């Protein structure tokens, strides 16, 4: 089918579009020349940046006044669609706000939604999205059978962002209609957890620890090694669930997707949940006691050994340099 128009759910941090937004805009303009960004917030400040990646229009709700974005932006999108502008495809990032918004909108439009996608194509079966399952070993392509708009959420880093050199996008107001009871949740305070060193999903080197460390105190070794390599420390879900480190450290299906030059997995067995988040790394070093651990199946260098023996020696050797 010819794709007449595509919307991208756009997000900002500190007033700048997120890299995820630019990734989706880049893909969107390969599908259609008619790309609009839809933002829960002020549009004027980012119309230039979004236009530079291919958006010709920015629908903006204006300040959400502390409402959680999902329910509010979905209602604003529905209002624009009811007003006559129906896109063929709406692209969302697979993150907190993206998931909330696409979920609410799917009910409002009575349309199915495909999530965790890494690609979208306009092929013989119509619009189809590809999703990795079983830790990325199998790729499933699913096509939409109903009518547009088609709703798809994409995993981070599915596309490489490229500037289009386009001019500023036209800003169109898309106010949030009355939400009734559904809009009852209100943000009362925002907490930013300070992270020193490079950000986990942007770092060139990532050092992650897992249950093989044995106890919470041993995570200090991961932090030390990360500091020596100018790396970001990461963690498996197991030790995040156990409360050793905050959720922001988590690499995997339910955490961050990382694609660094070097990924060091220390005491991580390589559960599907974890592998999905790090398999795209260029080089993988794994240290694990169990030589049957799945992580060795993807490692470029695998050390069968105790992390509590190998890491202290490695840290000493690096300090001595």
């Amino acid at each position, binding site marked *: 089918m010819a794709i007449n128009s595509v919307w991208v759910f756009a997000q900002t941090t500190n007033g700048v579009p997120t890299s995820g937004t630019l990734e989706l805009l880049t893909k969107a303009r390969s599908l259609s020349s008619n790309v609009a960004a839809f933002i829960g917030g002020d549009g004027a400040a980012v119309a230039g940046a979004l236009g530079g990646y291919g958006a010709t229009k920015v629908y903006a709700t204006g300040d959400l006044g502390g409402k*959680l974005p*999902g*329910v509010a932006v*979905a209602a604003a999108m529905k209002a624009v669609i009811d007003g006559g502008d129906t896109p063929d495809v709406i692209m969302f990032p697979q993150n*907190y706000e993206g*998931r909330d918004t*696409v*979920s*609410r909108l*799917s*009910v*409002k439009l009575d*349309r*199915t*939604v495909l999530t*965790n996608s890494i690609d979208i194509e306009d092929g013989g*079966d119509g619009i189809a999205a590809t999703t990795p*399952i*079983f830790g990325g*070993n*199998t*790729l*499933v*392509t*699913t096509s*939409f059978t*109903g009518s547009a708009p088609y709703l798809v959420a994409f995993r981070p880093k599915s596309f490489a962002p490229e500037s289009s050199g386009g001019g500023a996008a036209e800003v169109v107001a898309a106010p949030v209609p009355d939400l009734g*009871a*559904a809009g*009852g*949740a*209100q943000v*009362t*305070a*925002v*907490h930013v957890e300070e992270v020193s060193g490079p950000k986990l999903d942007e770092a060139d080197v990532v050092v992650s620890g897992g249950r093989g460390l044995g106890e919470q105190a041993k995570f200090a070794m991961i932090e030390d090694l990360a500091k020596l*390599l100018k790396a970001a420390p990461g963690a498996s879900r197991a030790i*995040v*669930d156990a409360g050793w480190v905050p*959720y*922001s450290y988590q690499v995997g*299906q*339910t955490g961050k997707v990382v694609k660094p*030059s070097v990924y*060091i997995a220390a005491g991580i067995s390589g559960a599907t*949940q974890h592998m999905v988040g790090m398999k795209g790394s260029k*080089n993988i070093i794994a240290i694990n006691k169990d*030589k049957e651990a799945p992580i060795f*199946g*993807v*490692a*470029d*260098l695998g*050390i*069968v*050994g105790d992390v509590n023996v*190998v890491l202290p020696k*490695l840290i000493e*050797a*690096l300090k001595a340099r």
Partner: protein
Amino acid sequence: MNVIVCVKQIPDPAVPGALDGGTNTLKRDGKIVIDDSDMYGVEMALQLVDAAGGGEVSLVSMAPNNETSGLRTALAMGAVKAVLVSDPALQGSDALTTAKVLAGAVQRLGGADLIIAATESSDGYTGTVPEQIAEVLGLPSVTFAKKISIDGSTIKAERQTEAGYDEVTCPMPAVISVTAGVVEPRYPSFKGIMAAKSKPVDEVTAGDLGINPVGWAGAGQKISKVAEAEARQAGEIIEDDGEAFSKIVGFLENLKVI
């Protein structure tokens, strides 16, 4: 205070997953267990009801083949009853249909002050169902909650964000999705396991809830291709002889990381 927890019964994750060759749906013919992610919701519900000094925890679940083994685990933990929507026609249902079915089951129980779900299931991980249930029921929601307390008729929650967390307030009734690790799930006691065997599980079909079409017919999507991803080749694997750290140093040197 009454709480309903959405529980998914999934194939034992200890067994590698496989797709049914005919339908391309996840095979469910082995052992079926409660999704680990849902244990946190059940525990949270039990603690909130306890703190409120009264009320009960009920369960809703959807499964194609009348499976109850996972529900029994949650009943053994302390939930008092369950609605199981089971229908061969449910096979192949998408997340939206699942949400409509679970919302129907919630209504069959007469609603609740709070509906709790995990942020996503461990087998399908579409991750949209809690928020879709909220929208179907016209309720407010707080997703990705890592801490919850109740103050009168208001929920106070800490909600995960990219940068940290937000403090959120929300009036009840509401839908909350909770992250893994939000509480430490209890182990069912022997007494609990015995009692769970006689707790009521109300088995209904999608039709009983007035929901049609379900399954493939209602999915709005079809699987058009299944392919193996390009496999990553394993590299050099060595046993640590006490000097393996130097291998890592050499590897990092080659990559100019150090």
